[in-house]
């Protein structure tokens, strides 16, 4: 057991650090004095910065060399993330594309798709978004209703709605899960598509949340025409393709959770700043309980990384870490509000923002309840809840649901 770099990892770290030292003055300033405020300009400069990181080999660290990646492992990816954070410069803009969607295309896409899309994605020339969730298909993702119908000439027509879509407002492309056959059970009639976001019939609308800001979008598709070459991974294979994306999503969240800012150091500093609170037994007890669990998550991340670097699948600790992070941060926001009082809820307060964001985060990437079901079944081996949707054609299921409601 050790937390130190091997000589090879130390050499890699030194190489990344030296590039960042040399080039960090070129990075966009997004916080503090001189920060860029215009949203469009932020996106523009961050795309340029992603391009520089990609040129230097600091983006797509785990992508194969054939696709302009570095062909390195998850530990090198984490080293790269740590050094970018240490240099206090922004990371890549399109973390969703490079972290999740690119690897999906690498695994399932055609050679044409790989050569057309991957390079532009990696360098930030074309940003991507993930078009999976719908208003009635989140944790039960295979229930998607966005419908793609094949035309006589083999092309497709797409209609439906997606939601919770990060970056859709400036994305060039989206990876979209649609139903292409409603007469088979729900996991079987799905297909994955590449959708140009500037296509006729695509409408993006910001979705404001508790904070008042729109971090996500709703995306509407009204009879959008898609070419036969838009299919990724084969018609009817959409579920398998989506599982690849979801696996990379878990890995991305697992390795990047420290960067979310929900950590004991930050919360303790807020308590330490109050002369009375830092000596109050109840405040200290609450801080101690919250912090112990958040500290655990840091080392859970190292366990996940150890497993990944040995080619193993990370254990249940990585799924449960999300539950711990979100519930810990919710309790921390509550504690800090108790200490600071209403000023913690001022509109420009970092705490108000965090407190507003967390209730939604609890359901992001699958609700906590579904996560606990999955872990109870896959890890503890407990029997599943009886299901009413197994083996039933999707169209029939929909009418059953309608009748039940």
């Amino acid at each position, binding site marked *: 057991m050790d937390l130190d770099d091997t000589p090879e990892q130390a050499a890699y770290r030194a190489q990344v650090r030296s590039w960042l030292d040399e080039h960090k003055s070129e990075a966009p300033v997004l916080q503090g004095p001189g920060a860029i405020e215009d949203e469009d300009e932020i996106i523009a400069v961050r795309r340029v910065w992603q391009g520089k990181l990609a040129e230097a080999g600091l983006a797509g660290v785990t992508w194969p060399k054939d696709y302009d990646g570095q062909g390195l492992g998850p530990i090198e990816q984490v080293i790269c993330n740590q050094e970018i954070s240490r240099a206090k410069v922004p990371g890549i803009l399109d973390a969703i594309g490079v972290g999740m969607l690119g690897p999906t295309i690498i695994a399932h896409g055609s050679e044409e798709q790989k050569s057309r899309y991957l390079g532009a994605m990696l360098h930030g020339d074309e940003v991507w978004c993930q078009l999976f969730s719908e208003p009635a298909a989140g944790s039960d993702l295979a229930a998607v209703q966005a419908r793609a119908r094949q035309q006589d000439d083999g092309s497709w027509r797409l209609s439906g709605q997606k939601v919770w879509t990060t970056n859709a407002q400036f994305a060039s492309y989206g990876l979209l899960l649609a139903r292409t056959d409603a007469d088979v059970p729900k996991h079987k009639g799905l297909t994955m598509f590449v959708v140009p976001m500037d296509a006729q019939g695509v409408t993006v609308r910001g979705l404001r949340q508790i904070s008042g800001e729109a971090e996500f979008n709703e995306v509407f598709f009204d009879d959008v025409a898609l070419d036969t070459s838009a299919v990724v991974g084969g018609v009817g294979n959409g579920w398998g393709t989506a599982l690849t994306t979801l696996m990379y999503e878990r890995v991305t969240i697992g390795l990047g959770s420290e960067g979310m800012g929900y950590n004991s150091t930050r919360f303790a500093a807020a308590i330490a700043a109050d002369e009375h609170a830092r000596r109050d037994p109840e405040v200290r007890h609450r801080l101690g309980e919250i912090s112990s669990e958040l500290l655990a998550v840091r080392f859970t991340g190292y366990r996940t990384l150890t497993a990944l670097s040995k080619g193993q699948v990370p254990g249940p600790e990585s799924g449960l870490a999300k539950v711990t992070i979100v519930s810990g941060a919710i309790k921390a926001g509550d504690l800090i509000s108790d200490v600071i009082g209403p000023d913690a809820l001022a509109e420009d307060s970092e705490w108000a923002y965090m407190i507003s964001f967390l209730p939604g985060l609890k359901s992001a990437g699958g609700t906590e309840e579904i996560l606990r079901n999955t872990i109870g079944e896959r890890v503890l081996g407990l*029997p599943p809840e009886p299901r009413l949707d197994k083996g039933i054609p999707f169209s029939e299921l929909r009418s059953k649901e309608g009748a039940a409601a």
Partner: protein
Amino acid sequence: MNLSLSDEQVFLREAARGALSRFKTLEAARAALDGDASAMPDLWPTACEAGWPGLLIDEAHGGAGLDAFDAMLVLGECGRVLAGIGLLGHLPATAILSDATNAAEYMAALATGERRAAYLPAQPPSDIDESWSADPASGLARAPIPTVGAPGEDGRVSVTGSFAFVPDAPGADVLVGTALRDEEPVGIAVMADANGVQIEPVSRYDATRSLGHVTLENAPAVVLDAPEASLAAAWYLAQALIAAESLGSVETALDVSVAYAKERFTFGRAIGSYQAVKHSLTEVLRQLENGRSLLYYAGWARAGAPGEFALAASAVRSVGGRALDEAARTMISVHGGIGATWEHDAPLYFRRAQLSRRLLGGTAQATDRVAGELIAQADAA
């Protein structure tokens, strides 16, 4: 970066599991609660055979020279079967003695287990309390630690004061801990059979736990030249060890509960298929996994980042104590009425949980210490 068990550590753990499986520790615990104290097996010979007394003593002094993390693995196995084995008291004591240069005479016999040590637990100062303190016999206020008197004409020193609820004190040959000399903390070693030493065995709620109230009345002592940091580290080592032991108990409580949730049917379904039951079991798993991660943190920090050991050990104590309480209560509720009966093992884990959380300063003190260490870190940043 490598946070996994080495082959040697896997072997150590499996060997411990095998050695302890030869004893009916749970039956003995129940019999002891019924008044048959002789039912408790003496596990010390097994510990000696396995070399556990010398785990933290270096090879030059006859020990195995292993790390705190290895000791935590062994304690975890003891916790799985509620084995009371004497290591919780012995190992922190040997850690202090190993850091002293004038304690060599003790080491060989302690490494083989021919003699047994017990650690006199003294909590180091925190960000809001400058004093060293001992567990009180009763109540919330911390107790003072003993003081070292002025040397007599023969140059010998003696110690006066008391420690309550000292793990594994009954039957120990040497008592090792911290006392104050001219307001400064120093390490002390006291022979248990010396004049002025009284060890009163006490039993509370959990028959598997050997405890004693230790009273020192001008008891002759050796002042150890161990550094103050070593005295503080022994407290945190004890925190990490009892946490490891608790997490071992959580593993068993969870395994037994999950097995029952698969085989017990109500309303035509296994009860483990109901979300309410499934989610309460995954909550135990969540707390267990958090505890496991913090065991790695504590195991790594003791040698790799000594400045963080207080934080890491307090954090795992805090999480481990809560996890055991959750696991024991879940074990009872998943089993329904039978889980609350004398014949079932669940009450034994429940009893272990309630007492463990009040020993060695208590889980709540450890939780407060996590906050204190983080506040101190924030001040330093």
